[in-house]
C-alpha cells in the first residue's frame, strides 16, 4: 500500500527527510512496515521526528481495549426489538384493516342500488284527446288575408267619410228659399256628398280586391271566396 503523501501545506516548511519519515510513521501505524522501520537514521538527528517515532510507538503499544457492554444490554435489546416487531406488525395489520374497510366502504357506496322511495301512485286523468285539426289550407289563409285587407280599407274609408257628415246640417234646419232672384238653383244637393265620396273611394277598394284576385290566380290558387264587405 502506498503511503498517502502529506498535505502540501504541512510539508512546505519541513525538510524532505521529515516528510519522508512521517510517511514511514504512517506506514508503520498502518501495519505495512514493521516497528523497526522507525529506527532509521533520520530521527536520530531530528528531534521532532524522534518524538513522532516515540509517539507512534506509544500509540501502537497503548492498551486501547474496547469497552465492554454492560451486563443485560443484549437481553434488553432483544426484548425491545421483539416488542418493536410486534408493534410494527400490529400497526401494519391496523393499516391493512383500515385500508380494507376504506375499500369496502367505497365499493359499497359506489355499488349501492339507486335510492327508491315509496311513492304514492297518482291516478292521472286520462289525457284529453284533442281532435286533430285539419291542416290549414293556403287558399283559406289568402282569403282571410284578403278579407282583413278589405276590412282595413273600409275602416279607413269610414274614418274619412264620417267626420264630413257633421258638416252637413239636418235637412229640416235648412230653409231653402224657393226662389232667389239672380241665383240659379244648385245643380246637385250637398246631401249627395257622401255618395259622391263613396263613389270616389270605391275604385280604391275595387282595385285592391282585383289585385288580390290577380295574385291568387298567378299562384294557382284560383279565386278565393269573395269576402263579404
Amino acid at each position, binding site marked *: 500500500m502506498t503511503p498517502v503523501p502529506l498535505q502540501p501545506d504541512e510539508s512546505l516548511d519541513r525538510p524532505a527527510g521529515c516528510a519522508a519519515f512521517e510517511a514511514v510513521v504512517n506506514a508503520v501505524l498502518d501495519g505495512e512496515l514493521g516497528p523497526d522501520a522507525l529506527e532509521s537514521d533520520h530521527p536520530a538527528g531530528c528531534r521532532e521526528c524522534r*518524538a513522532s517515532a516515540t509517539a507512534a510507538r506509544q500509540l501502537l503499544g497503548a492498551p486501547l481495549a474496547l469497552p465492554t*457492554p454492560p451486563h443485560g444490554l443484549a437481553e434488553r435489546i432483544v426484548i425491545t*426489538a421483539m416488542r418493536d416487531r410486534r408493534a410494527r406488525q400490529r400497526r401494519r395489520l391496523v393499516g391493512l384493516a383500515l385500508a380494507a374497510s376504506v375499500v369496502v366502504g367505497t365499493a359499497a357506496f359506489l355499488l349501492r342500488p339507486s335510492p327508491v322511495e315509496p311513492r304514492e301512485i297518482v291516478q292521472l286523468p286520462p289525457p284529453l284527446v284533442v281532435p286533430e285539426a285539419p291542416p290549414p289550407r293556403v287558399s283559406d289563409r289568402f282569403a282571410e288575408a284578403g278579407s282583413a285587407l278589405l276590412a282595413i280599407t273600409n275602416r279607413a274609408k269610414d274614418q274619412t267619410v264620417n267626420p264630413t257628415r257633421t258638416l252637413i246640417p239636418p235637412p229640416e234646419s235648412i230653409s231653402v228659399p224657393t226662389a232667389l232672384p239672380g241665383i240659379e238653383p244648385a245643380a246637385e244637393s250637398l246631401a249627395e256628398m257622401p255618395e259622391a265620396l263613396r263613389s270616389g273611394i270605391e275604385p280604391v277598394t275595387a282595385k285592391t280586391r282585383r289585385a288580390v284576385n290577380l295574385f291568387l290566380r298567378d299562384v294557382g290558387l284560383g279565386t278565393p271566396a269573395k269576402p263579404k264587405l
Partner: protein
Amino acid sequence: MSADDDLVRRCRHGRPDAMRELVERFQPEVYALCVRLVSHRHDAEDVTQEVFLRVFRSLGRWDGVRPLRPWVLGIAVNRCRTWLGRRRRIPEPVDYLHEVAGRPSEAPASELTAAIRSAVDDLRPEYREVFVLFHEHGRSYEEIAGVVGRPVGTVKTWLHRGRAHVLAELRRRGLAPDDPDPAAAPRPANRS
C-alpha cells in the same frame, strides 16, 4: 447460503433465538464504537439499542452479497452522527467527557491511554470514526470505507490527519519523549 444469509433470514422470520444471536455477535463492536463516538456510556447504550432496532427493521434492505458486519457498523456510525447532531442542537447540562458517578467506569489503564482518548475525543467526528475503527477495532481501509460510505483515499486522508493530531497531542503532553522508553515495545495493529 452464507452464515450471514441464514441468520438474516431467521431474524426476518421473527425468531427470537436468531435475533439474540445477531445481537450477541455484533453488540460488543457496536457498543464499543458508540462509546468512542458519542463519548458517553449511557448514551452509547441508548444508541446501541437504536442501532439494533434499525438493523432489524432494515434487514429486508440488506444486500446479501455484502458482508453483514460493515453494514451493521455503518448503521452504528450513522446513528452516532445523528445522536451527536441532536446533542449539538440540544445542549446538555452535564459534561460528557466525564463518566457518570456511581457507575463502574472503565478507568484508563494509564495516563497514555487517557491522553490518547482525550485526543481522539477532540477529533472531528469523521476523523474520530476512522481512527477508532482502525486503531481500536482493527478494521481495514476497505472495511472502513464501506462503513463510513466514503472512498478509501478519503478514509486514508482522514486517518492520517487524525493520527497527526493524536501524535502531536502526545508530544504536547510530554508523553512522547525524545528518548523512547525501551519497555514500550511496539505492537503492530491487529487486522481482522
